[in-house]
């Protein structure tokens, strides 16, 4: 279920001399205790946490090329481009091809290739350009056999390399392999990625009802709304409001609907048909239908402009008129309707925002002697990665694309440097002052090197490395384009759970997310407490409560055998956490400021 809550006042601008008052609210707007309260807490925190739940973006790739090789004797080449996704097994799967541009060495193809962007995986792409033989020019491009055409060149990159570039455009060299096994650079291919316009559309509405039917025997109804979109064969819920207890004339908090919730096929948000159902909340979970309305988003806007209500209807069980719906006196009003641009994760990334990766590795004795094959830190001579190396590599290879300088802070904790004391935050590269290493390979090298220079000790404490990451995030607050991702890899239970909770609560107001990977076979119950997905909001020993959920925990063993890699489980919530932070502070992508400055 997707959706988002926003209390940003309509018409307020975030840039220039106008006042900005970004707020984040967690109020429920209801009274009374019991199940309703619990239900409201869960719903509200869920929506706050999932600012962009299950993020995926539909992208369209536009291709152009310059400097292609001239193969035709009496005319120039007739180029066509084909786009492949490279699978894990190395095979290429065609995902689209352009039209043929006749007589051109510098084609600008018009047809776009669609691809779904997934943040949590690396998506390698291969582009091949062919010169289509003259006798095939009247054929449909789909029927062309590529081995009958002249091959002009090939280029490859990851999809995230394109979307992290300014304006989402990437220039690639086309490489041709000739018959003698050599390679030659011939021409340049430019790939531009664009999100569909619908991705940014969002509508915020405030719903109010009057004269609802009373379903409770000794008190008034506890109504909530469920909004679903209509698909073939039924409906799919996309939004659920909070419960307003004991009220037949409720007003709910703002509902925010975005095109993304309706899938890639919805080209126009306003035309989307919706079913709005009003239920009376029951603790048993079997909620009673009060009434139902079917409207498009545009219809709801019309209700708002005309300031009229729409009567609910309820299916009747009368045997005489089996399909008739009874019109009720209860009505739905739209008190506020505002269209807004909801900037996507890719809007921020392509305008220059970065994800800065940090790593912290557990060096406590419970991992076992690194020289023994049973150790979790064992470096296999065959080159097979241990669990720590696997986690570092798989997370790092995804996140590195979003960091421009690719210098990553890397720490260890719970180990004792030779001739030193036990440290709960030491630099992995062994340097007393420099904590950054170069690239993912730099982390791997520093890790292997540290195993020779550090004695495993204990106990297991997270607080110091979390505070150190928070310190770095704090120092970057003047630059709003930086967001930090700390990966903690650990094998054991915490010695001081409360210290870790306190550090996490302090960090929750900063541009920082924390990924925790559990390796080995220990009991990870404490980790589940830290992960807000399965626990409640963290509360520090001083009574401060986490502003937002920044922790994601995944035990290594659960995913090693499955199809979904550990990286996908860890990283899928990261864009949502990023967006929750940015939107709560009304921070916009850089191109918005540029546009307004030039205006």
């Amino acid at each position, binding site marked *: 279920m997707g959706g988002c809550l926003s*209390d940003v006042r309509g018409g307020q601008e*975030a*840039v*220039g*001399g*106008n*006042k*900005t*008052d*970004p*707020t*984040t*609210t*967690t*109020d*429920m*707007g*209801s*009274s*009374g*205790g019991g199940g309703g*309260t619990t239900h*409201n*807490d869960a719903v509200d925190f869920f929506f706050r946490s999932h600012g962009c739940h299950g993020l995926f973006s539909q992208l369209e790739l536009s291709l152009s090329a310059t400097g292609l090789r001239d193969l035709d004797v009496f005319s120039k080449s007739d180029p066509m481009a084909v786009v492949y996704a490279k699978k894990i097994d190395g095979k290429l799967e065609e995902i689209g091809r352009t039209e043929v541009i006749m007589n051109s060495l510098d084609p600008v193809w018009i047809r776009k290739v669609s691809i779904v962007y997934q943040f949590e995986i690396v998506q390698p792409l291969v582009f091949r350009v062919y010169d289509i033989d003259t006798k095939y020019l009247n054929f449909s491009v789909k029927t062309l056999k590529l081995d009958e055409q002249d091959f002009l060149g090939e280029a490859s990159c990851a999809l995230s390399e394109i979307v992290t570039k300014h304006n989402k455009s990437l220039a690639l060299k086309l490489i041709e392999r000739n018959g003698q096994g050599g390679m030659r650079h011939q021409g340049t291919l430019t790939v531009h990625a664009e999100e569909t316009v619908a991705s940014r559309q969002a509508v915020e509405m405030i719903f109010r009802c009057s004269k609802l039917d009373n379903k409770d025997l000794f008190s008034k109804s506890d109504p909530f709304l469920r909004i679903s979109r209509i698909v073939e064969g039924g409906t799919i819920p996309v939004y659920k409001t909070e419960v307003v207890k004991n009220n037949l004339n409720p007003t709910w908090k703002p509902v925010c609907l975005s095109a993304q919730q309706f899938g890639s096929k919805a080209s126009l948000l306003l035309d989307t048909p919706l079913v709005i159902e009003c239920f009376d909340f029951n603790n048993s979970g079997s909620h009673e239908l009060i009434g139902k309305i079917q409207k498009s988003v545009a219809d709801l806007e019309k209700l708002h402009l005309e300031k009229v209500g729409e009567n609910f209807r309820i299916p009747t069980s009368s045997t005489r008129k089996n399909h008739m719906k009874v019109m009720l006196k209860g009505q739905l009003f739209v008190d506020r309707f505002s269209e807004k641009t909801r900037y996507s994760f890719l809007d921020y990334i392509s305008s220059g925002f970065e994800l800065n990766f940090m790593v912290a590795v557990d060096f406590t004795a419970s991992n076992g002697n690194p020289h023994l094959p049973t150790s979790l830190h064992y470096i296999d001579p065959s080159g097979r990665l241990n669990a720590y190396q696997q986690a570092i590599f798989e997370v790092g290879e995804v996140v590195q694309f979003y960091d421009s300088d690719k210098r990553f802070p890397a720490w260890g904790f719970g180990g004792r440097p030779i001739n030193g004391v036990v440290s709960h935050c030491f630099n992995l590269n062994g340097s007393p002052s420099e904590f950054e290493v170069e690239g993912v390979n730099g982390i791997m090298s520093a890790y292997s090197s540290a195993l020779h220079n550090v004695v495993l000790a204990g106990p297991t404490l997270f607080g110091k490395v979390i505070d150190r990451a928070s*310190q770095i995030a*704090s*120092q970057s*607050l*003047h630059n*709003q384009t930086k967001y930090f991702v700390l990966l903690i890899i650990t094998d054991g239970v915490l010695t001081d759970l409360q210290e870790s909770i306190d550090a996490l609560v*302090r960090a929750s*107001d900063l541009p920082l997310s924390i990924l925790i990977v559990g390796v080995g076979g220990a009991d990870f119950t404490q980790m589940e407490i830290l992960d807000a997905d399965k626990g409640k*909001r963290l*509360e520090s020993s*001083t*009574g*401060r*409560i*986490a*502003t*937002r959920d920044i922790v994601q925990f995944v035990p290594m063993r659960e995913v090693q055998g499955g199809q979904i890699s550990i990286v996908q489980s860890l990283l899928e919530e990261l864009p949502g956490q990023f967006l929750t932070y940015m939107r*709560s*502070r*009304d*921070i916009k992508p850089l191109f918005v400021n540029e546009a307004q400055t030039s205006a």
Partner: protein
Amino acid sequence: MDKRTPRVLEVTVISAEDLRINDRSIKKNAFVVVQTDYSINYRNTCIDTEGGSYPSWNEKLELPLYHNVRFIRVEVQCKTGSSARMIGEAKIPISDFIGDYIPPHYVHFLSYRLRQRDGERNGIVNLSVRVKVPLYRTFLPSGVQAANENYDGIAVGIPVSYGCTV
């Protein structure tokens, strides 16, 4: 008397959750008092007559923040008849939003557990806090001062005045 110009503390009281009196949810009329540990400096929000035990104010309060203030106190009360009853309070250390690395103007979104007078836990209060840099009025012409006073956005780097050459 402190001769230094105090900074201005801007507290936006956003909302509260699950407010109870004698373990029963309050029905209406919650409001919040914010004060520094200098007890003469305090501000009230308006009364939320509709939110029940989950009130919402979104109200901005400003207090002077002297350099030796150690914490601010946020007390949630409920107006009953002609008087007010204390629901719970939270003591917020200054270090939660002023630190060695925190730049000026950074907006903190903070939530705190409320404690009753007897120490029992009550609900949660949500607010945002920002420290505004002092304005040296004697050195600025009124135009710049007015512009600065109207400027309420999040500053990036060093704040600059608008519409005037410094």
